[in-house]
């Protein structure tokens, strides 16, 4: 395209712009439409789950016989496993978060991050495999040993730090490794000595303790990262004031930072609870899948998610089992959504 030479070049540019205006506008509109289609697809995929479930379930209100009891058993199994897992994971995840925020430098924090990422990235089917084949045979007769193990490791670490703590002040980065060495020594000693082997015998190697331990491994990095975020915010806000008044790190943490971060920490626990409640592979592999409604952690269990994975492929579409499983899915969806919403609320409150 050639434009004849004129005295006023600005007019040429204006002509060019005029020429291309309609094509530019068309392109702009097309780009905008494409982006809107993408956003629409996201919204549709969010709505797809509840809309699909309601659409399938609504035509008849009738609930097949026995659905209530069966869902009750599955719900109790889900709760038993996930609550146990979160209870096991909270001390570990919280301690790690406290150490990262209060006793580490930013450099150490960035070095520890990959460890937590690695732990979070391990596929749950692998954790299920390890729980099923490696941990279960050992754990069956040693549930009591587990308690001794935890107590002994904690005692060894506390004793070690009461003695060597002053010397470690100069090398704060060594603390986790010293704790690791102390805890490993105590742990190996307890496992080799095994004082309570066989004192608490579980009927089945695939029990709720096993599931709780394996699920706990998935919950620890989540609790640690979300909790560390909450602690960091509170720490940044309050620590200067506390230190100016002469408080030590521990005093600042206990009296100011922990109370201020409490909603955020509760949100972390809630998120972990939701994650564990929906987790499938670990429960499917390690729980024995026995539909029992018992609160005893030595018994097996069956969860909503495992029931879905096991029964849905064989359920006839539209049949009674199909409907029951869809109700189970709806329960799971509502459960996770409620956990998400409550956690978001709590985090917003912690941030304000």
């Amino acid at each position, binding site marked *: 395209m050639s434009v004849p030479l004129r005295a006023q070049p600005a007019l040429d540019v204006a002509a060019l712009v005029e020429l291309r205006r309609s094509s530019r506008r068309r392109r702009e509109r097309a780009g905008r439409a494409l982006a809107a289609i993408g956003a629409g697809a996201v*919204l549709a995929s969010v709505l797809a789950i509840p809309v699909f479930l309601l659409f399938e379930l609504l035509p008849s209100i009738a609930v097949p016989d026995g659905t209530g009891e069966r869902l009750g058993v599955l719900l109790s199994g889900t709760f038993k496993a996930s609550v146990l897992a979160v209870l096991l994971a909270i001390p570990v995840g919280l*301690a790690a978060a406290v150490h990262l925020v209060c006793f580490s430098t930013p450099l150490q924090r960035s070095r520890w991050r990959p460890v937590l990422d690695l732990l979070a990235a391990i596929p749950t089917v692998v954790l299920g495999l390890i729980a099923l084949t490696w941990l279960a045979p050992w754990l069956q007769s040693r549930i009591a040993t587990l308690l001794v193990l935890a107590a002994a490791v904690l005692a060894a670490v506390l004793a070690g*730090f009461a003695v060597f703590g002053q010397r470690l002040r100069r090398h704060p980065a060594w603390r986790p490794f010293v704790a690791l060495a102390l805890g490993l020594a105590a742990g190996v000693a307890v496992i080799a000595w095994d004082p309570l082997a066989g004192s608490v015998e579980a009927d089945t190697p695939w029990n709720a303790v096993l599931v709780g331990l394996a699920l706990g491994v998935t919950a620890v990095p989540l609790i640690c990262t979300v909790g560390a975020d909450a602690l960091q915010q509170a720490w940044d806000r309050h620590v200067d004031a506390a230190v100016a008044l002469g408080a030590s790190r521990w005093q600042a943490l206990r009296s100011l930072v922990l109370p201020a971060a409490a909603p955020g920490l509760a949100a972390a626990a809630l998120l972990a609870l939701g994650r564990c409640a929906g987790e499938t592979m670990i429960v*499917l592999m390690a729980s024995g899948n026995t539909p029992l409604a018992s609160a005893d952690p030595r018994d097996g269990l069956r969860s909503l998610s495992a029931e879905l994975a096991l029964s849905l492929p064989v359920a006839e579409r539209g049949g009674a089992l199909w409907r029951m499983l869809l109700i189970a899915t709806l329960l799971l969806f509502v459960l996770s959504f409620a956990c998400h919403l409550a956690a978001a609320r709590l985090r917003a409150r912690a941030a304000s």
Partner: protein
Amino acid sequence: MMRGAALRRGRIVEHLAAGSSAAGLALCLLLAGGIVLLLVRAGLAPFWPQPVIEYTLRDGRSVLGELMLHRDGALIVRGDEQARPGDGYVRLREAEILAERQPPDAVARVHADGRRSYRLGEAGPDEPDLVGVDRRNALTFAGKLAFFGERLRAYAIGGDRSGDAGQGLLPALAGTLTLVLLMSLIVMPIGVAAAVHLHVYAGRGRIGALVRGAVGSLADVPSIVYGVLGLGLFVHGIGGGIDRWLHADRLPVPTFGTGGLLWAALTLAVLTLPVVVATVEQGLARIPDTQRLGSLALGATRGETLRRLLLPQARPAVLSAWILAVARAVGAVAPLMLVGVVKYAPASPIDAAFPYLHPSRQFTHLGFAVYDQALISPDALVGVPRAYSAALLLVALVLVLNAAAGLVGRRLRDRDRAFPL
């Protein structure tokens, strides 16, 4: 004096707090390292040549074979398999055993149907179906290493007929990669478009907040729920519809109305959509606003600004979003169990026949191989080590992808630090 005691007590409390919290971090390290080490050990051990042992029993018999398990005062020995693989296990009590030795002339043989047998002395030409013979007790360390490498290679890339490994991991790996690639083709355009809409067009308005909240809540929905959606909506709903419309002649045998590669890819695409949208939007948000405003002030439209200025700069963020989505999809096994993953795919979803990719076919998957070998394998003593091998490959895949995403992200941050605007 009292003040000194209180100070000392305070200092000790401080040390105790530091120590006990460090223990939490230490446990995380122990878990991560322990799991990886356990996988490497248990995943590679089945390929290392186990010695052939001859047990002499008190009643005069002798048993020749490999020690599989030693627990509670009893040994499980894998001896000659007569009719089919897995029928040669012998249980020996420790008290029965008089002596054991590793005869240097022992021969381990593998038959064409996967059976193992053990002989002393000559391998013997008595059976025509032998596919592998080795004298592993006489091997030097280098020889054992070569043996290990050969078996590992055969298991990893398939075509292995020398017994233990069975089908090999190649079909599962190929199925996983095909699935993930197909999923990427679906999720990346949609995810990037949605992120662009959020950043450029929706801004901080009500629709933007709605979509953002939706993306956030999608991320917390359990993966099995997506599996139910995939089965009910994609397989039965859309797949069944396509069948009634296009393949009515073949009904009631379903073509698309059953679990298959396409539906699994769609399900995983919905599953990974939140990761993609969030990561790409973060990448777009990291670009300084001055650049966008400058471009608009020079007369470019929003679309031109986006195409020429924002998207090229957000390319590393798109890459890292893709890697994270793939890492999440590779580890998600539960939804696949509802939408068409199988133990042995009768026909691979990719082959040399036109149109090369068959999206309605069933497929195999590494994560499902772990589950299947560990739980459903008829021979646990062989199945569990195989499950560990598959798990090792799966974890290696996920960790490499995560490390790559981390590297891309770090380069992005470094660049931001180098050119602050």
